[in-house]
């Protein structure tokens, strides 16, 4: 922007014009032009700052205590079931030869695990936040637009076609790598297994389920035939339209497990919601006792040194268990309080020294 070049090197006509304008234009005498706009000049006097800090500090301490206590009440049960150690129940599933492998993880609860209990699976050293991985999906397919079923977007490569060049639906790396371990939870009462009902609804974002993702419209009344001419992602055991045959509202792209997987995790160590335990005898929580978790072990993570775990947790108003927030609030709150005291001392000292000067 070279405004000056013109203003300085103007032709004489310019200059004369300018002179005439100026002669007629006495500067406006407004508060704005004279830089005299009424202004609030914040004076951070000690009288405001010290009580301010104190109040903020106390408030933070209060919030911190509440957070910390809340976080302490949250029960968490984490179990790694990758099967790295030889004595772990799922070790035998880690050998690649084992195609369909089931293993059983047992645990016992000494007290009631207050409900509603949330059942998460967790992966670590798994980079859902790879850039290439993250863009590798076709949003048009996922909104149910069958036009894009035949010609997936370029970003889906190399997960767009199978070896016979049939288009994959849903295409892309994210969909293709969908987590496919499944779990069943049993309470062991007197040696007999009592199945704990797991609720798979409401585990994905409401907007994802209701607005963002759409299934293709059924063709001739058949949902499956909307997928005609396409193949399932290579790693999937079942096609998209077979994800949940029991509940048509949980099928296809609207399958909640699928939706949860499609929302990429922020960090390489993450957990995703698998089920909620809200029904039957377990609505108030998991009572004390022995439990057995049957794992249908499908998902390979050892090739990239990953880990798999299951997490049982209940939540509070602040979400899952997280001590960080509470501690942070406590630290900052006490810092503010200390600061206000220090400032009080400093201020008093300065005030006195000023009196001396005067």
């Amino acid at each position, binding site marked *: *922007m070279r*405004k000056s*070049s*013109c203003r300085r*090197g103007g*032709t*004489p*006509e310019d200059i*004369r014009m300018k002179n005439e304008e*100026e*002669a007629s234009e006495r*500067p*406006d005498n407004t508060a704005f*032009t004279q*830089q005299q*706009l009424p*202004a609030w*000049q*914040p*004076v951070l006097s000690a009288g405001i700052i010290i009580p301010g800090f104190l109040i903020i500090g106390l408030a*933070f301490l209060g919030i911190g205590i509440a957070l910390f206590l809340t976080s302490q009440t949250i029960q968490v049960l984490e179990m790694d079931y990758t099967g790295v150690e030889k004595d772990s129940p799922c070790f035998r599933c880690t050998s690649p030869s084992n195609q369909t492998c089931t293993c059983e993880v047992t645990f016992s609860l000494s007290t009631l695990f207050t409900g509603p209990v*949330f059942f*998460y699976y967790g992966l670590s050293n798994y*980079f*859902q*936040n790879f*850039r*290439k991985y*993250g863009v590798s999906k076709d949003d*048009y397919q996922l909104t149910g637009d069958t036009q894009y079923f035949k010609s997936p977007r370029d970003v889906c490569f*190399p*997960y767009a076609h199978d070896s016979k060049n049939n288009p994959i639906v849903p295409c892309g790396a994210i969909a293709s*790598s969908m987590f496919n371990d499944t779990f069943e939870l049993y309470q062991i009462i007197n040696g007999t297994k009592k199945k704990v009902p797991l609720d798979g609804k409401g585990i*994905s*974002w409401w*907007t994802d389920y209701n607005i963002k993702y759409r299934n293709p419209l059924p063709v001739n009344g058949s949902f499956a035939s909307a997928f005609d001419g396409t193949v399932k992602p290579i790693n999937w055991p079942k096609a998209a339209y077979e994800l949940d045959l029991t509940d048509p509202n949980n099928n296809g792209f609207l399958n909640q497990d699928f939706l*949860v997987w499609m929302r*990429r*995790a*922020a*960090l390489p160590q993450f*957990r995703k*919601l698998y089920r909620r335990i809200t029904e039957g005898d377990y609505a108030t929580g998991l009572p004390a006792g022995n439990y057995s978790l049957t794992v249908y072990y499908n998902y*390979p993570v050892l090739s*990239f*040194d990953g880990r798999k775990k299951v997490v049982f*947790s209940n*939540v*509070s108003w*602040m*979400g*899952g268990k*997280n001590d*960080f*927030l509470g501690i*942070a609030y406590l630290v900052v709150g006490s810092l503010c309080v200390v600061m206000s005291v220090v*400032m009080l001392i400093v201020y008093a000292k*300065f005030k006195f020294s*000023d009196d001396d*000067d005067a």
Partner: protein
Amino acid sequence: MLRRRINRLCGGDEKRLDSRTIYVGNRPCPDTEAFIPSKFCDNRIVSSKYTVWNFLPKNLFEQFRRIANFYFLIIFLVQVIVDTPTSPVTSGLPLFFVITVTAIKQGYEDWLRHKADKEVNKYLVTVLEDGRSVRKESEKIKVGDVVEVVEDETFPCDLILLESSREDGTCFVTTASLDGESNHKTHYTVSDTEKDLQALTATIECEQPQPDLYKFVGRMHIYQQEQEQEQELVVRSLGPENLLLKGATLKNTKKIYGVSVYTGMETKMALNYQGKSQKRSAVEKSINAFLLVYLCILISKAIVCTTLKYVWQSKAGQDEPWYNQKTQKEKDTNMYLKMFTDFLSFMVLFNFIIPVSMYVTVEMQKFLGSFFITWDKDFFDPEIEEGALVNTSDLNEELGQVEYVFTDKTGTLTQNNMEFIECCIDGFQYRYRDTLSEVDGPVNNQQQNAGQEKEELFLRALCLCHTVQVKEAGSEVLVDEVDGMDGLLPQPEQETGFIASSPDEIALVKGAMKYGFTFLGLESKCMKIKNRQNDIEEYKLLHVLNFDPVRRRMSVIVQNNSGETLLFCKGADSSIFPRVRPEEVDRIRMHVERNATDGYRTLCVAYKKLSAEEYAMADAGLMEARLALQDREERLISVYNQVETGMSLIGATAVEDRLQEEAAETMEALQGAGMKVWVLTGDKMETAKSTCYACRLFQRGTELLELTVRTLKDEDKKRDVKLKELLQEYYKKAVLDAPPVRPGVTRSWSTANQDYGFIVDGATLSLVMNPPCDDDASQNKSFFLQICQSCTAVLCCRMAPLQKAQIVKMVKNSKGSPITLSIGDGANDVSMILEAHVGIGIKGKEGRQAVRNSDYAIPKLKHLKKLLLAHGHLYYVRIAHLVQYFFYKNLCFILPQFLYQFFCGYSQQPLYDAAYLTMYNICFTSMPILAYSLLEQHISIEILLHNAALYREIANNAMLRWRPFLYWTLLGIFQGLMFFFGVRFLFSNPALQDNGQVFGNWSYGTIVFTVLVFTVTLKLALDTRHWTWINHFVIWGSLAFYVFFSFFWGGIIWPFLKQQRLYFVFANMLSSVSAWLVIIILILLSLLPEILLVVLRKPRGHHSQQKKQSQSNVGGNQSPESSTRPLLMRTFSDESSPVV
């Protein structure tokens, strides 16, 4: 003759020759067989830069020559070509915006120039062709055409005046649009041409076009056809008085004819309007330095990421996990090429660290900010009905950084409003008193009278020895006109007005009038004066030996009725005394020196009777010299010097040049602000010294170190030896013995330090600067410079304009390259105004040249105080804060994105959504800082004006040095780390909602971004000391806009987006209590150091401010309120109060 032939033959090679030949009326000359018209450029004026066709490429080329634009273009191209994490839109859109806005602005400006050019070029003029008058468009005028110009028209090209409708062969012009001087200047026809233009056959030989408006040499060969066969060749000299410049306006003359000599782009006007070199401010240099640092940060970030990426990938299974396999193409790509594209991708990802919008904001800030100077009503001068003028807005902040002020004396420190105070005739003092003037005869003696004869001779000399014109009262145009010279002053009692190029002359003529000798005017080389007996005396004006600053005197040669030829000479004492009989000098010298110490301008008047032979010799010499084409000036001066010898001194005059309003207060404020004031003047030492005392630049305690011709010639040593001695002595005194001065503090209020004032004159200066032998020249020079720098005030007198610039240049290039400011009002100050970092013009009486060449123009000297102390200070603080803030906010913007790479496998995954990346600098954080940088007054204007010492706090670019830069950078890093790791720890459990659902990566980025936007905006809010409603509006408005935009952006499925990745992310974030809590605590934690700093610094800053204020009251006990003021310190404002 031979030479002319050659000229004609080599018409095409005109440029190489030093003169051009023009055929009047394009008619062949009788003595040339073949008439070959030379090729000159046509009369088209082209001030525009572009045409419709070349606008786009040329403008783009020029814009991309700027390093920043080019950088962003490269980034954009990388984004287009290479597969990069962010879409090209993110950097293309801002760049496009910047380029478009600039192009539109420049295009508009060029369109205006085109329009102006067209108006000038298509203007119809009358050209005499083959005896007929033809109306032609101005652009079609050729060199040699005879052009007719009527009253109030401007001349279409540079013309030699051939014929005027006035009978005495003169015409009047004003050059207001050329140099701003609105007085009427008389131009003369070439004698012998005004008889019959149709029959005139002549050639003009003149120099090649050159830009000096006041120089022209040429020669006219006129072939007079007295008899049919015989042709007589007459040669006439041509000077600037014959040349009518394009752009000047014909006044008071019905019509003239002139032959065009320079046309189009070769006219003096066009040559003078070529662009000047751009001045760059120190802030810009700082920006470039910081930019370099950030570029290094950027590159090292990219290198670190690229390296780590390949280190990380080398681990088994990391490079290509089964869930994220590469395409065949990617696998085939060369490893090094991949590394390079990765490097470029990282560059693109982090490129936002160098803010594209900073340039736009800085430009906007400068452009809009400069309006506050124009608008300031304190700069409005009711006398000239004008306020301040800003010629460039690039230097606003430089006004807050001035270390050296170079000021002109006449017209700047003083009013250039001359008043005749007293005179001394033959050693007797005459002081004029109003009351006695009419009754007792005008001359009132104090002790004794000089002889009547001497008195009258003196007064006649005053009446005759000048170039004043009488304003014609008869012409109505002139009566109504407010003239540049005299119209400003109310003169109720005066029926005649005078016009002159120097106000001294008017003062003298008016002084003579008070004593009964009235100058009535000059008519056809005959000067009329009315003497005391009311008789009219007539003198034939034979020659005017013009004034020039080297000779410092002027003379006229007149012939009175009785046939006596007299030479009257007036000039500076130093130039007159050697040329008069020594015995007369002593009586008058005393008066002259006393007057000079009183601060008056003194002139000595001498005369000489010329015998017929003497005159004949002088006349011949002058004529010969005037006809010379080469070295005319030198020859004339040597003739002048021959004539002006052996005169007898009659007397001396004292003219008071009053100080400008508040000159002393202004100077004191500038010195209080730590600036060193140097007075550079062409005036003589005594006068200048007294002005310095009056302005309080020198005070009673100041020890003066004098390095002038006088102190040099004391002993019988050689001058350069003495010079060296003196320099060493002064150096020891002022530099070595003086206690070390703390930087930034040059003159404290209470210290007992000896103040030194340094006086140097032009002759000595040239001895220092251009020594005859250069063995210890550099040492002399460095001594000189150091003495100058350690003195509180320096007075350089007897300076030629170029020497002024030389001094400025010397200081400018000295160690630490201090910021210099030159202030002046006249053409002689232009060189130093152009040389200094900041040039200030005063809209004074000596024309508009200084104003035109200045960066800022103010009506009065007193306005300098507010311009520097208030405007300059504020602009500097504003822009410095703007720059630092911009770098800071982009650092803490990009740092989390950089850190995120460590958690995403160095895959160039952006942390923020593309919309946020693009909008951050354009929308979310740009307005508050712009408002801040326009409105902030961290200290109110009143306090800044009252307390000059505050100016020192920002001296030496204090806010843009490396320390504050480091502070801001560390702050940015601290906050960036806070943002990222705060959210990182929160996300150790991503189940943040009370329904147990988890957040993904875009939620992560959005939380960081929200904290970021709020923190940097609130950081600015913390820094804002002056909250107007605009600040409130933009700060809270920006935050509200961010929230609103995020809702909107995430609330709709945008059909044009391929990925709806932010869909409802923001709303979901807000539904999580944890997110709220983490945002609040991170904002607070990030700002905590800043708040603490403000709080802990505040009590000290506040009190010290009060202390300083009281101190300045103590120190400033010579402020206007105090009653004990030295007599010398009077100013106009004081005297205007009723004393009688």
